[in-house]
């Protein structure tokens, strides 16, 4: 297992907007080990999605370097799959075709059509969506769409799974259900995951480490909390676990006491 699978070194992000320069991130230093589950948490506007986009390669840092598996991140690539908040499935393709688009790109050159199809269906089965392979996105519920989005990402067999508030738009019950499934899938696939969230329980339940970010502008990493809870984790048992309650309190304390969201004057 590589200790420094993803390395973020002194990353700075400055956006040139119409209103002038906006300093979004400063001095971000973070190492993620292979197989680790890391969540980024912070108030809205703290740049956690910006950091995720940097790792995805969708945007490039103003200065500093990002490295994944000993290679500099210069562009998006299939080894870093992204699950978007709004799933972003293409409405004119069926669930299977949506997944197939990703599979084809990664394995199309080396595998037969039947193998590609088997991969797409296997990915859908992994998220329990095999039954909806021929359905179009508008025919399935929000939670199901998000699962297909995860299937599309997993089907590429990425080295890293990047998730941008993947369950943010779902109701609480569906969210809990998908979190449990994600835990199982990650345990099975040993994926490295970087996930953006604003949900404290979600962060503590899923993570090996929680990266807590200070408020923007010029946000940076305030504190990193290691979550040493046994896996597999069970949300019902954890609810009364003293360690779990302690971690939860730590994050809440960081977010609301030490770095409470100050509404900008004027």
């Amino acid at each position, binding site marked *: 297992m590589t200790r420094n699978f993803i390395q973020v070194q002194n990353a700075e992000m400055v956006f040139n907007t119409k209103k002038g320069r906006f300093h979004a991130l400063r001095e971000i230093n973070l190492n993620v080990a292979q197989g680790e589950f890391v969540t980024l948490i912070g108030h809205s506007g703290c740049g956690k999605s910006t950091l995720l986009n940097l790792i995805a390669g969708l945007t490039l840092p103003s200065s500093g370097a990002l490295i994944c598996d000993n290679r500099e991140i210069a562009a998006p690539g299939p080894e870093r799959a*992204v699950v*978007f908040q709004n799933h972003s499935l*293409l409405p*004119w*393709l069926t669930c299977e075709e949506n997944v197939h688009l990703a599979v084809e*790109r990664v394995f199309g050159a080396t595998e037969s059509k039947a193998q590609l199809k088997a991969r797409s269906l296997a990915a859908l089965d992994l998220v329990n969506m095999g039954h909806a392979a021929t359905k*179009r996105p*508008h025919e399935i519920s929000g939670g199901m769409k998000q699962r297909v989005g995860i299937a599309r990402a997993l089907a590429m067999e990425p080295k890293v799974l990047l998730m941008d508030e993947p369950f943010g738009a779902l109701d609480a019950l569906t969210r809990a259900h998908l979190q449990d499934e994600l835990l199982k899938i990650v345990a099975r696939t040993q994926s490295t995951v970087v996930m953006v969230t604003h949900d404290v329980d979600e962060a503590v339940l899923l993570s090996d480490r929680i990266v807590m970010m200070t408020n923007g502008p010029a946000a940076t990493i305030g504190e990193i909390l290691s979550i040493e809870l046994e896996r597999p984790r069970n949300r019902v048992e954890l609810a009364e676990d003293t360690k779990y309650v302690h971690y939860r309190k730590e994050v809440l304390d960081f977010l609301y006491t030490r770095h409470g969201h100050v509404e900008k004057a004027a």
Partner: protein
Amino acid sequence: MVSAVFHSPRDAANEARPAASDKPKAPAAPAPVAKARQPVDWRGIVLKVLPPLVGIAALVGIWALLTIKSSTFPTPLATFKEAVVLFSDPFYSNGPNDQGLGWNILFSLQRVAVGFGLAALVGIPFGFMIGRFDFLSRMFSPLISLLRPVSPLAWLPIGLLVFKAANPAAIWTIFICSIWPMIINTAVGVQRVPADYLNVARVLNLSEWKVITKILFPAVLPYMLTGVRLSVGTAWLVIVAAEMLTGGVGIGFWVWDEWNNLNVTHILIAIFVIGIVGLLLEWALVSIAKRFTYDDV
């Protein structure tokens, strides 16, 4: 006509949106099936059928009242009788200046099809390029803004000068009037492809060909079809006027010819026929557009 020809990009987007919102109503479609088991909803049917019938009856009634004592303007009954005669033999041919109503319509439709088809071949790829490349968009938008409001008939002399024949000049006029809505709507569609879809393309690292066929084209299609619909509508409006000026076999020239014969009944029939053909064209294209419209999920 004016609204169709001078269609601004913003209007075009608004046009496309109702089409997109048509789909969410689709789940409601099974309702009539459920209704079939229940007693027939006579009240609903009457409320649906009655108003259009009242509208038509009012038109015919007012027309009949106004023409009761007129000797120059035909009554509805006389028009109907004449229409029956005309429609009983729509495809006769007594030389170039005396052909059946069916031939006239077909010739007009053919001109529209050729002119419109050429416009689609040029306009749609052009719209794609303008939408995709900011430089081209800025380069051509002043030209388009300048030329688009020009009445299509103003282009007819240019057509006559260049092609030295009436028929190609009419087709040229159709071409020039139907190209603008297609360019503009396609360009707007390309510019409005959701950023999420393009991010998907970047993350999946799709080839340019896949981006075009799997993401851009399906995303732009509803906008494009709106452009096509507006174009065909405009083309059908313009062909009548163009044919009045160029002559030959065609519904527009037929109207002009009947005016010279002082056969007002035939002119009235032609007006109805032109309206019905336009309605059918519109209906056909709306059904195609519905087929290719997807919800933003």
